[in-house]
């Protein structure tokens, strides 16, 4: 399947995961990611892997832990409250140094929330949603193509760091249909790494999957180095017309797609406006901010109420300029509304200088 | 009596089966004393490096049934066939 075909975001993610060699999937129905579960329920069988509709998201993440320990490329997907149920398991994956990929197709709201588009999980995704000293790499696709590309990268990154990796899309990216070029299928060997469970041979030491600090006196340094490496090597971002921008929009996922249009129309109107699109939410792309020196203000465009990304932007620009939040609640942001807000900010900046 | 035994194995050779007792492993639960059908096991009066009072097997009474091995959670006992 190497030509462009039209696919739904959720299904492209599933197909691409299989192309990356994923042969273990556990899931549970929850909107807006149920298509991934349904797609895997027939497609995984065709490629000879394991599909399990687990009895809960909690059980599902633990099945993934077992499959990962045994050497499989293992995937589970969820949203909202289901994603919350997985946090203990993700913490355990991080502590036990197991690679796995977890997808959060975000919806909106705490509690049950709503099944509509949302980007309400930014804090949970980027700060380590479970207990303890850990965070995970977070990749944020903004198109069906990126859904397919980033799920493959996620498996590679998970194995590079022996760490769980999150892929965070949203209901729009999951449901939209766009042309996509799927990756070439490749095989994954469960025996690829010696550290995977395969039975302790006589005379050998058994492989133990537990908190690393039980056995590693250098754990503190190890952990710091791991995250330092992630932060140095894995920042991914896209910059659009930031070279002379006075106001820079910061957005990911479907919000960033709207911001492309906002930048284009804004420029036509003579506004010096640009877009900084994080592709990794952790590590937050600090390097991108080296290219935003002309900015007099940042505006995060997010589908949540509390402006969850504002803190990271403030840290990245060291509070050198105001950082505001444009919240679109229960709907995809509207270009005109973004530009109205942008004009206000630019006027304010002009008056002050 | 002895104050401290450091990982000694007392070989009690009798009949066809010998009971080897690794007293260093003993944690003083005394399931063996209770399980022995011929009352061949008793307290030794010695303490091992872990701090537990260990047991001793009376070779004259031992019949080599292996009950001590079966009930011991710490694998103190080993039954071997003696060379003939």
């Amino acid at each position: 399947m190497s030509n462009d075909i039209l696919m739904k975001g959720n299904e492209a993610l599933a197909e691409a995961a299989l192309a990356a060699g994923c042969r273990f999937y556990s899931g549970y129905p929850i909107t807006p990611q149920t298509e991934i579960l349904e797609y895997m329920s027939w497609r995984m069988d065709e490629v000879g892997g394991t599909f399990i509709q687990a009895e809960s998201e909690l059980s599902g993440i633990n099945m993934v832990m077992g499959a990962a320990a045994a050497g499989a490329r293992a995937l589970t997907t969820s949203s909202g409250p289901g994603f919350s149920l997985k946090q203990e398991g993700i913490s355990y994956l991080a502590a036990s140094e197991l690679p796995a990929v977890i997808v959060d197709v975000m919806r909106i709201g705490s509690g049950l929330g709503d099944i509509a588009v949302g980007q309400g999980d930014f804090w949970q995704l980027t700060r380590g949603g479970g207990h303890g000293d850990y965070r995970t790499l977070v990749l944020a696709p903004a198109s069906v193509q990126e859904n397919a590309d980033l799920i493959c990268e996620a498996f590679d990154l998970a194995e590079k760091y022996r760490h769980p990796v999150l892929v965070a899309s949203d209901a729009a990216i999951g449901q939209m249909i766009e042309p996509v070029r799927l990756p070439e299928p490749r095989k994954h060997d469960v025996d690829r790494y010696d550290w995977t469970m395969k039975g302790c041979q006589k005379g050998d030491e058994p492989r133990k999957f537990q908190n690393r600090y039980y056995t590693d006196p250098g754990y503190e340094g190890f952990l710091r180095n791991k995250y330092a490496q992630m932060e140095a090597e894995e920042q991914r971002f896209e910059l659009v017309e930031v070279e002379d921008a006075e106001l820079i929009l910061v957005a990911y996922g479907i919000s960033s797609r709207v911001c492309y249009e906002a930048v284009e129309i804004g420029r036509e109107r003579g506004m010096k406006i640009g877009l900084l699109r994080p592709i990794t939410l952790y590590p937050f792309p600090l390097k991108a901010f080296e290219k935003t020196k002309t900015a007099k203000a940042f505006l995060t465009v997010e589908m949540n109420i509390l402006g969850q990304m504002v803190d990271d932007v403030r840290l990245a620009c060291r509070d050198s300029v105001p950082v505001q939040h444009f919240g679109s609640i229960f709907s995809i942001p509207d270009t005109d509304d973004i530009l109205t807000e942008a004009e206000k900010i630019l006027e304010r900046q002009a008056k002050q200088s | 009596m002895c104050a401290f035994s450091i990982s000694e194995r007392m070989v009690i050779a009798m009949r066809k089966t010998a009971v080897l007792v690794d007293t260093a492993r003993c944690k003083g639960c005394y399931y063996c004393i209770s399980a022995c059908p011929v009352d061949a096991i008793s307290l030794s009066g010695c303490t091992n490096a872990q701090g537990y009072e260990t047991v001793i097997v009376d070779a004259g009474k031992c019949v080599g049934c292996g009950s001590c091995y079966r009930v011991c959670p710490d694998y103190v006992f080993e039954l071997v066939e003696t060379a003939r």
Partner: protein
Amino acid sequence: MILRAPETVSFTTSGFCPGCGHGLAVRLIAEVMEEMALSEKLLAVLDVACGSLAIDAWKFDTVMAAHGRPLPVAVGIKKTRPDHPVMAYIGDGAAYSIGMAEMMHCGIRNDNIVAVVINNNVYGMTGGQCAPTTLPGQKTTSTPYGKDPDISGMPFQVEAAFSGFKVGYLARGGLFDVPTINRSKMLLRTAFEKHMAGDGFCLVELLSPCPTNLHLLPVATMERIRTEVTVYFPLGEFQNNTREGK
């Protein structure tokens, strides 16, 4: 006759308390693995607390899972390494309290894994709190006046819970004297044989002495199991099925 603990467990002393049943269960598993020539293939999953000490007490590749989650972890392992014996070794709190949903669904799906449940009627590592298997009237640190069934329910019997559907194997053994220890080994052997034959969910519960948290001398703890615990938890084989068309 030669009786020696297998090297997979005799290579070290353990962290279990004096008189703890874990030492016995661990040895029986090692013996069964040795006899079935599966020592180099067993993949094990542990829970937290006392049972987790086994990770340093045996030479089997082991995952220490979250509390109550070893069963789905074992399912994930077995699906990835189908020709290996895969065992979840858990306490009664893990199996019948926090992990109850996972255990029931392993039974409903008849997942092909071995579950060994060490039932000591309390939460041991945390200091002896009430468990779903605590006996009526039993005093624990969270039922200081004695467990009241009106508040906490009667002791949970897994054979009753599974009576509505078929699983590969369901049995209960004891670890409180030579005959019960020997029979428990046979139950474990049967469980692993049926597991390797693909018969489905094979659960063996073992009534285990916990002198530390029952505040009894070890021998008295064993006697208590014989006279009191078996009244609520009868020994025996409750289910033995093969999987059709496997």
